[in-house]
């Protein structure tokens, strides 16, 4: 897997093709919007009974990153759980996997709108924000420079949608890492307003960088 290396306010970063962010100097792996327990929450509310495997699918991908990079710190950038009850009702297999992944490293749960409180009995620390130099890591974009999740950004590339990092002057947005997550196109006003120009780094078998906010960019089709 080939990532995209770039600097952001003095931090050397790698946008991984998986959608995770790697801060090499701090040996810190950041993933946003895992949404663990989503299928359980929908079922609880009388909705459809989705295949209850998204936790396994999501953590298997995270496990691959952990094995590849051996991080000292793993940060869940908010919305790690689909809601607080879901964090308490995780499948034993998912719990075991989470325990194994967190073993021997600093694990940080940053609160998101779906999981504002600290998850109980899962280990790790819970924080509102985290700082690396001038850069704040938080769930939802605020005063820059910051690194955030929340929007599940995607871009159009070669006729299809891909999950993507969005890199503006003061903001870096991460794609959702969770298996059962949709995406918001960068052209959507809610997202475009916040980061009108910059770069997108599309996920896939390798990270592909493309410009945003350039006329015609991201709108071509083949």
């Amino acid at each position, binding site marked *: 897997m080939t990532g995209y290396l*770039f600097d952001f306010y003095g931090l050397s970063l790698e946008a991984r093709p998986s959608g995770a962010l790697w801060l090499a100097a701090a040996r810190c792996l950041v993933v946003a919007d895992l949404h663990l327990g989503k299928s*359980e929450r929908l*079922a*609880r509310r*009388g*909705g*459809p*009974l*989705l*295949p*209850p*495997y*998204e936790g*396994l*699918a999501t953590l298997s991908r995270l496990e691959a990153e952990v094995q590849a990079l051996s991080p000292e710190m793993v940060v869940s950038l908010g919305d790690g759980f689909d809601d607080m009850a879901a964090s308490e009702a995780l*499948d034993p*297999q998912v719990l075991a996997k989470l325990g194994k992944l967190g073993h021997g490293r600093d694990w940080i749960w940053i609160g998101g709108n779906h999981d504002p409180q600290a998850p109980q009995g899962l280990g790790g620390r819970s924080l509102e924000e985290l700082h690396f130099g001038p850069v704040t890591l938080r769930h939802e974009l605020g005063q820059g420079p910051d690194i955030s999740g929340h*929007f*599940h950004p995607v871009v159009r*590339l*070669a*006729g*299809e949608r891909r999950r993507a990092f969005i890199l503006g002057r003061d903001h870096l947005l991460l794609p*959702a890492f969770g*298996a*059962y*997550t*949709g*995406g*918001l*196109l960068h*052209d*959507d006003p*809610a997202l475009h307003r916040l980061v009108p120009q910059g*770069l997108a780094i*599309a996920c*896939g*078998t*390798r990270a*592909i*960088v*493309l*410009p945003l906010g*350039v006329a015609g*960019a*991201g*709108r*071509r089709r*083949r």
Partner: protein
Amino acid sequence: MSLPPKLMGWFTRQGWQPHPHQLALLEAEGDSLLVAPTGGGKTLAGFLPSLVELSALQDGYLDNGESRARGVHTLYVSPLKALTADIGRNLARPVAELGLGIRVEDRTGDTNQARRRRQRVDPPEILLTTPESLALMLSYPEAPAIFGGLRRVVLDELHALAESKRGDQLMLGLARLRQMAPELRVTGLSATVEDPVALANFMAGAAPVRIVEADPGPEPDIAMLATARPPPWSGGGGHYAVPEVLEAIRGANTTIVFINTRAQAELFFQALWAANDDNLPIGLHHGSLAHEQRVKVEAAMAAGELRAVVATGSLDLGIDWGAVDLVIQVGAPKNVKRLVQRIGRANHRYNAPSKARIVAANRFEQIECVAALEAVAARDLDGDPRGAGPLDVLCQHILLIACAGPFDADRLYAEVVTAGPYRALSRADFDACLDFAATGGYALRAYDRWQRLMQRDGFWRLRDPRASQLLRMNVGTIVEAEMMKVRLRGRGGAPLGEVEESFAASLEPGDSFLIGGRTVRMDALREMVVEVTPQPTANPKIAVFSGVKLATSTQLSHRVLALVGHPERHDLLPAQTRDWLALQAEVSLLPQPDLLLSETFPHGGLSHFALYGFAGRNALQTLGLLLTRAMEEQGLGPLGFLSTDYALLVWSIDPVLDPDPLLDIERLRAGLGDWLASNAVMKRTFRNVATVAGLIQRNMPGLRKSGRQATFSSDILYDTLRKYDPEHLMLRITAEEAGRGLVDFGRIEEMLARSPHRAHQVLDRVSPLAAPLLLEVGRVPIRGEGRERLARIEAEELMREAGLEALL
């Protein structure tokens, strides 16, 4: 039962004589199926027994001694909302003139809430509805009270309903009705079909159905419409024929102009008006128009205010506009049966010949039209046998039955197997569907606490009764692309219709497009509504509706190939088409019934491979998937393909020089397994199946507004299931459904078997026969190494254009 004097008198006053088949239905003791050409007085025949019974009721008794109807007496089900409204109008007259004192009401997706609520407590004697609305009504706890006294069911346009899952859903509903009201008698009404016995078995319950066939009537007057200009090379517009079509409309009383897709109907309507110097009143009717717009057109048509209406399949079925005396079909009809049924719409009078003219949209379609005319003259109808009832429809049925109240699994199984399409359903399959409905049916992990259905005291019931709202919101077996409403800007702006979400997403504010025959400018996209302002402009974008694409039937394809391959028969074709085929014969070769032709040529910097298989678009699509797999293995870098009814076109980075190893039948069959499972066609089929079965919900209260990141693609569910639960019921149903329809591997085998000879032409440019293919839409991308290469190249180009090479 015979026609009582009161009704006979009414017939006489209309100046009518009952048709023999109308009387035959009246005499039928059990269930019957009436097969009659359009205009045979079918609908009246269907209602006659009800009118006789209700008139007897008026006189104070029923033959079972009851003195008043309990709940609904007659239920009428039609595939179209428009049809129920039309039938309501037509019935109003006899009901009033006979003084029956009964209510006739419709109940469709368009019926308002207040009326729906009232109908549940105080149902009318005659209820007119659609399969979806019937399924919905059967999900109410009041269903036994509404339908317990039901005496008659009329199934209109049964041939059309039987073509889709709507028919399966209807038959499950009918099985339930027969359980609730054992005295029920069912009458099916059908246009001319190739196999009436199969249709009778489809609608039958425990007892056999009697088939009544009406006199097919005189030969239709049908021909190609002569035009001054030749048709274009590709596309489905037919605009070149506008002057002649207008002339034909002028010469007729009332005309229906049938066009195959909604987008084409919009454009043709626009083109007609642009040339309509006499201001002939011409309307537009298709399924994506706002309800209000459709009703207006239907009313104007019924009142004789329109000289013509441009319509899609939304008017395929029997709305009775007696004044229609000409049908014009623009575009190839794809199958002969449908053409015959459409022709029948002209001269909606029994025993008068129908007049119809056909406009081929492009050169290739000219051949297909000529072949279709030959088939009509030979009364050679086409059709494929219907498969067993699909399990996704059964899953939905089980969930909706649970909404009505607790049920016993053994009794429900016994009821389901009385429905025609489910007669051969095994108990194991039924139990698998029940398990899916109850628990999701997952192998590795169960929702023990959050099951949808729980078994208590031997009865299955909803765990959370509130779930019924969500389930009812998702009734139906037709899964369409996500649509967005289009409204005029401003508070309370008038609704104009719907466009596909993907089309809406491609619009920028200021872009113009066509909807409802007018050009509008897109202003904003707000909460899943496209806001627009009227703006006449020369070059609007066109709204794209991905309606169901019918494959040309096997029989018609064979006729087309026989015509193409025999130059001595080319005299039947228009001169320009003859010249085109002659040029093809000169530059390359003509495909023959026993010769499979393929060509390789460069175009636009990529290699193209064209195969003239004449096997229908579904089979050729499957072949496209399998061929590109083999090409990927050979390192040719396939990027995508498209299939039409007659040919397959694949484009790749490197050329196909020897197709023989690619077309090896064993190799193709081997590819059916894994490669097919991971492709876009299967994912589309899965989306359909999972939506019908209730795994994916189309409609969620309040969720649509919260932004798109809340919903995720069904592809993710498909991939997850394949990885963690490959034996899951949804995957099994998907494979079955794809094998039956979209995959159509049988036709690939047939194509290879009937073509003992092969010819591969390596050309230095596009051949005459291939040229129209390059202009076709509906391309399927291939996600292989070729695509990755292309994505990187495209992104790099963009970075360079933006002056950002340094960042690469």
